[in-house]
C-alpha cells in the first residue's frame, strides 16, 4: 500500500484536490487516505494518469545500437509513460504475430512501461502485400502502420483500411507525398532557399493527407465496420485544416502532433545542426499556432513523441546524410507543460488529456480518471524547474534539441498498475 498525501489531482476531467491517494492491488483505493506502509508527501506535486505514447521508435529488433527495449522503456517511464506503442520499422520490420508476441514477452519481463508493438500494414513495410490484420490484433498489435516509409500505393492503403476495420484496428500513416518531398531535409521556403538546403514542402504533407482522406472515404463506403485512419505527426496548418474539415464531415480520422513540431521552427536549421533534421520537418510559427488551435479544439487527438533515437555519430554527419529523427520520450511532458501551459496558458486539463485519454481513445482503451477504483497507472509530477541534461538520459540517444532548456513538470514517480517503475524522489 502506498499513500500519497496532499497531492493535487489532474486528469481529463480537470484539476482537483488536494487529496490523500491510497494505492493498492493495482488500483486507487481511496482519495481520502488510509493505512499504508509507505507514505509520500505530495504537497506541491501533481498526480496524473500514466501517459500513453502512440509513436516511439524503440529500434528493437536489429537497431539496438540506437535504442533497445530496456533503454527505450526506461526512458519512457522516466518521461511518465505507462504505455508505449513502438513503431514496426525495425530490422526486420515487425510484420508477423510471432514478432509482436516476442516483443511483448521481452517487454513484460523488463517490468517498465507496457509495450504495445505496432505491426506493419504491409509485409516487410514494402507497400505491396497486406499483413495478417486479425492475427496481429490477437497477438497484441494496437495498430497497423508502415511508418518510417510512406504509403505510396493508394490501393494497398484502401485494402489495409478495409481489412483492419474488421478487427477494430486503426491504420496509422506517415502522410507525406514522397515524390513531392524528394530529397528535402528541411521545410521548403525562403529559409531553405537561403541556407541552400533541399526543401520538403508543406504541400507534400497536405497533398498526402487529402489523398488519404479520400481513400478513407472509399473504405468507409465499402466496409460494414468503421475503418479508422490515424494521421501521424501532423505538422502543417493546411494539413490541420484538411483533418478539421474531414472530422466535421464525420469521417473516422484521428491525428497526433509531436513535441518538436509544437516547440521548434525551421529557424533552428540556421545552425546547420542535423539534430534538428526530422520528417516531417520543423515548420514555422504560423504552423505552430495552427497546431495549438487544433489541440485545443480537438482536431488533434493526442500528443505523440515520434521518439526517434540515433547514434551521436549518425547525428554528426552532414545534413544530407544524417538520419531523420529527434528523441523526446524523457522530455515530452515537462517540455509542453512549461512551453504550452506555463508560458502560453494552454489548459493543463487538456494537456494531460492529450497525453492520456486522447491517445487511449484512439486505441480503444478505457480512460483513466483519478477516482476510487481506477487503475493505478499514474505519474507524479514536480513543477520544480531544472534544465534538460541529455547526458543523464536513459535513452541511448543522449542528445536533445532542448538541451539546457529550463523546464518544470518532471515526472518523479511512475506507477504501472500500482507497481513503482520509476522514482526520483528524495
Amino acid at each position, binding site marked *: 500500500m502506498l499513500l500519497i498525501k496532499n497531492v493535487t489531482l489532474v486528469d481529463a476531467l480537470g484539476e482537483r484536490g488536494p487529496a490523500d491517494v491510497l494505492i493498492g492491488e493495482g488500483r486507487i483505493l481511496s482519495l481520502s487516505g488510509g493505512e499504508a506502509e509507505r507514505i509520500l508527501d505530495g504537497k506541491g506535486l501533481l498526480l496524473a494518469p500514466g501517459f500513453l505514447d502512440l509513436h516511439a521508435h524503440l529500434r528493437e529488433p536489429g537497431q539496438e545500437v540506437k535504442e533497445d527495449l530496456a533503454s527505450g522503456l526506461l526512458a519512457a517511464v522516466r518521461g511518465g509513460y505507462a504505455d508505449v506503442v513502438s513503431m514496426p520499422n525495425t530490422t526486420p520490420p515487425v510484420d508477423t504475430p510471432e514478432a509482436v508476441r516476442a516483443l511483448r514477452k521481452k517487454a513484460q519481463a523488463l517490468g517498465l512501461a507496457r509495450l504495445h508493438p505496432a505491426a506493419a500494414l504491409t509485409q516487410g513495410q514494402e507497400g505491396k502485400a497486406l499483413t495478417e490484420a486479425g492475427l496481429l490484433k490477437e497477438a497484441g498489435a494496437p495498430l497497423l502502420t508502415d511508418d518510417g516509409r510512406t504509403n505510396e500505393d493508394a490501393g494497398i492503403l484502401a485494402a489495409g483500411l478495409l481489412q483492419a476495420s474488421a478487427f477494430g484496428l486503426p491504420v496509422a500513416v506517415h502522410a507525406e507525398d514522397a515524390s513531392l518531398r524528394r530529397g528535402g531535409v528541411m521545410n521548403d521556403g525562403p529559409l531553405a532557399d537561403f541556407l*541552400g538546403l533541399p526543401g520538403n514542402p508543406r504541400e507534400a504533407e497536405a497533398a498526402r493527407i487529402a489523398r488519404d482522406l479520400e481513400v478513407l472515404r472509399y473504405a468507409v463506403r465499402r466496409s460494414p465496420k468503421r475503418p479508422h485512419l490515424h494521421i501521424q505527426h501532423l505538422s502543417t496548418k493546411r494539413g490541420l485544416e484538411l483533418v478539421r474539415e474531414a472530422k466535421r464531415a464525420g469521417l473516422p480520422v484521428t491525428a497526433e502532433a509531436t513535441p518538436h513540431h509544437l516547440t521548434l521552427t525551421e529557424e533552428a536549421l540556421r*545552425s546547420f545542426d542535423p539534430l534538428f533534421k526530422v520528417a516531417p520537418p520543423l515548420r514555422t510559427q504560423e504552423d505552430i499556432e495552427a497546431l495549438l488551435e487544433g489541440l485545443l479544439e480537438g482536431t488533434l487527438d493526442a500528443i505523440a513523441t515520434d521518439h526517434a533515437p540515433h547514434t551521436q555519430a549518425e547525428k*554528426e554527419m*552532414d*545534413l544530407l*546524410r544524417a538520419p531523420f529523427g529527434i528523441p523526446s520520450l524523457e522530455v515530452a511532458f515537462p517540455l509542453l507543460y512549461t512551453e504550452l501551459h506555463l508560458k502560453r496558458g494552454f489548459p493543463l486539463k487538456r494537456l494531460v488529456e492529450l497525453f492520456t485519454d486522447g491517445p487511449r481513445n484512439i486505441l480503444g482503451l478505457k480512460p483513466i480518471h483519478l477516482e476510487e477504483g481506477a487503475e493505478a497507472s499514474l505519474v507524479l509530477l514536480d513543477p520544480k524547474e531544472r534544465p534538460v541534461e541529455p547526458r543523464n538520459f536513459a535513452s541511448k540517444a543522449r542528445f536533445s534539441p532542448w538541451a539546457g532548456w529550463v523546464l518544470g513538470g518532471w515526472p518523479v514517480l511512475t506507477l504501472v498498475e500500482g507497481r513503482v517503475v520509476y522514482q526520483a524522489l528524495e
Partner: protein
Amino acid sequence: MRHLLDFQGWTRGQVENILDTARVMAEVLERPVKKVPALQGFTVATVFFEPSTRTRISFELAARRMSADVVSFATQASSLQKGESYKDTLLTLEAMGIDAYIIRADSAGVPHQAARWVKGVVVNGGDGRRAHPTQALLDTYTLLEALGTLEGRKIAIVGDILHSRVARSNVELLPLLGAEVWVAGPPTLLPQSLPGARLTPHLDEALAEADAVMVLRLQKERMEAGLIHLQDYIAHYQVTEERLSKAKPHALLLHPGPMNRDIELEGTLADSERSLVNRQVHNGVAVRMAVLYHLLVGREG
C-alpha cells in the same frame, strides 16, 4: 572574423580590407620570386569531402606563396558513411596541429559544423548549395578590377541558381558593395526568393543594361532529374553575343568554371574581349592569400 563560412555578419569594411590585401598579394605574384614569409610556421589543410582539383590547387598555391606548410586530405563523402566521420577526420587533423582548414563538401553546413568542432580557422571551400565565399570574393575582385566600382552597377547571374553556391555567395556579397544583382534561370532552377537579388525567369530582363553577366555551369544531373530539357535551356537561357546586345555595350562576362561551351554560353564568347574567365582564375590565388592572411595573422579587433 574568426572563420570565413559565408558573408552573414560581414561588413563592407571587412570585405574591402580583404580586397585591399588581395591587391598587395597580387603584386607579390607579379614578382620574379612569388613568395613571402607571411605564414611561415602555419599549417594549412585542404579537407575536401567532394572532389575539386581547381579550387584545391588555388588554395594550396595561395598558402604556399605565403610559406605555409600545406597538407591535403581528400575523400568521397560516400566512403565516409562507412568509415571515419567528418568529425573524427577533423579531430585527427587537429591533433596534428593544423592552423587552418579549407573545407569543401557536397552538403550545406559542413564548414559550420566543423567550426564547432575544431579550434583552428575554417575557410569554406564550397558547401553544397550554400556558399562559396572565396569564389564570390574573387568574382568581386575581378569585377572591381574591370569596373572600378560596383556602386549602382547591375550584375546578372544566369543559369541554375537553385543549386548554385556561387550564386548564393555572390548574392550575399555583391550588394554589400553597392551592386544591383539580378538572377535569371528556368523556374525549376530558381529559388522562391534570395535576399539581395531580383529573380526572373526571363533572361532578357536580367541582361537589360547589365554591366556584367555571370554565367553558371548547367549540370547534367538537372537534365537527368527531368528538371529541364537541354534544348529548351539552350534556346532560352544560353548567353550569346546576340542576347548580350541588351546589356551595356561592353558588358563583361564571368564564369566560375568549368565551362560547358555552347550549353550555358555561346562557345566563342569565353574567348572574346568581354570575357574575364581567365582573370577570375588568376585572381583566385591572390584573393585566397588575402583570406588566409587575414584569418591567421591579420586579425582585426
